[in-house]
């Protein structure tokens, strides 16, 4: 069963604008896919549809086999618990420290304090932000904040990660670091759908790329030699790739 099935999806706004025009593609479990295209291509709209923040005007969207069109409003939260979402602007709680920002979703699941602590500490360690546990977002750099946002998604152990321009506000170094983080999550089994219009990033870390323009799927590009999903194709830009070090820590440059 594909993680995501998009079948002839159309999104039409009341003013007549068609943000998506008959989009059709699948994302398999454990696959890493870029959603690329210029501004207004429909990337963010698609992510909104996948999160069921908006409803498709036509066509079907299935996430883990569940048709979002038929999903009741009360079931939406339970769908979202399987999806980790990361935004360009991080969307962190400014008045909560790093630990609490990462733990926020775990309280929704009703996990015990011990389990929350264990998961959050594990995630912070993996992301190399354990020393910032008590720090507040304004005290962190953009890259660190994005790591916290990734940590929040990771702690929920989602099967699908949606990232909407997660590197949009970051410089090249930090952008590479974030993509490597996603690669690590992907290697752990999560399907990743990352919206980006950064051509250089896609070239540096080649993956399957869905190229959108004006709501149409223009191309479905697969990187040379990349066969199956979830292989965690490492970036070639820096030549180092992302990996879990000996300690199990996710690091941008291979060791911490």
């Amino acid at each position, binding site marked *: 069963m594909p993680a995501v099935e998009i079948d002839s999806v159309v999104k039409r706004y009341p003013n007549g604008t068609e943000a998506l025009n008959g989009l059709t593609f699948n994302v398999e*479990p*454990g696959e890493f896919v870029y959603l690329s295209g210029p501004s207004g291509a429909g990337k963010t709209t698609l992510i909104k549809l996948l*999160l069921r*923040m908006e409803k498709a005007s036509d066509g079907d969207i299935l996430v*883990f086999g569940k048709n979002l069109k038929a999903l009741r409003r*009360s079931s939406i*939260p*339970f*769908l*979202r*618990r*399987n999806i980790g*979402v990361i935004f360009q602007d991080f*969307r962190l*709680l*400014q008045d909560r420290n790093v630990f609490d920002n990462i733990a*926020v*979703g775990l*309280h*929704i*699941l*009703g*996990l*015990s*304090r011990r*389990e929350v*602590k*264990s*998961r*959050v*500490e*594990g*995630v912070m*360690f*993996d992301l190399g932000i*354990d020393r910032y546990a008590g720090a507040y977002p304004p005290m962190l750099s953009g890259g660190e904040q994005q790591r916290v946002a990734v940590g*929040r*998604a*990771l*702690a*929920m*152990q*989602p*099967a699908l990660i949606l990232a909407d321009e997660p590197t949009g506000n970051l410089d090249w170094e930090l952008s590479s670091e974030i993509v490597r983080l996603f690669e*690590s*999550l992907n*290697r*752990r*089994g*999560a399907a990743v759908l990352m919206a980006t219009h950064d051509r250089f990033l896609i070239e540096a870390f080649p993956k399957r790329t869905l190229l959108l323009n004006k709501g149409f799927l223009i191309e479905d590009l697969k990187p040379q030699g990349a066969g199956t999903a*979830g*292989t*965690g194709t490492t970036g070639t830009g820096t030549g180092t790739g992302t*990996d*879990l*070090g*000996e*300690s*199990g*820590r996710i690091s941008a440059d291979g060791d911490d």
Partner: protein
Amino acid sequence: MDGPQKPSDERPGASGEHSTQPMSPPRGLAAARKAAHLLTEGVRGLLISPGQVLACVSSLAVATCLVTLFGSFGSVAVDALERAGNRAHVIIYLKEQVPSDRVNELMKTIRGRPDVNDVRYLSAGEDRARNAALLPRDLAASLPPGEIPGQHCIEVGFGDASGGAPDVVGLTAFLKKIEDVDVVAEPPVGAARIRAAAAAVRFGRLALSLLAGLLLLSTIFFVVGTLTRTMERRRDEMNILRLIGATDAFLKAPLYIQGIAQGALGVLAGAIAGVFIVSAANSWLATELAVSIRLPTGQGLLVPLALLAGAGVGGLGAFIATSRRLP
């Protein structure tokens, strides 16, 4: 797919491989943990706008205090008037030579009337003692006992067995016609008037209590305002929580907890203040006027009722606020 090297001892926790479903604890346990978390969040909400929360709690307290005072002080007037009404009576002074069996017969006849509450015989000595008690102490002490008048008599108390005001005029006319009656001393104020006044006071008390209740109800809007402010301050947080899987109930629960806590605190504080004022007034009234105030409810019920009413006001406020403004 390459599995990452499993972290060993160094790594705290174990997020490990991704499962296709987030791991969920047993439902009951999860609900209890969520409840504990939401309780903390609700209390946290009280600290978001402490000034506004304080204003809300104070206004609730003032309104509740007024309700308590209206209800309690109104009872003083009602009691006094009812007591006066019940004590309204006509005294029939009997001719001196009326024998006791005739007196008993007369008492039986009078008692048979539906508008008579009680009938009591007073000897000449008892009547004299009562008259002496009506005089200033100095004067009563200075007079020789024979100077204070006393005549055997029958005291007839008005009754309202039928629920209506007694027919004072009819009863007096009836008593005057009795052969052995010397004089009928009519009451200075008709019992009907006294009871009418009592009814008016009772109505006034009810009206004031309703007004106070309305005041209390209007404080719901303070609760709504405070919660709206909390929602505005936490709008981003709520939007994020929604995106990561929070249900409406999860978002609303802390607001309900906050509203109920505010309501219960305010109403309880007001009720306690009201009881304190009533108690202080009671000791003064008992000393000076020989009357006491009854609380609208027994003191034992006051705290649970106040908490219940406060929770009701807070809960209603939270319902209105979350229905209109939840992101």
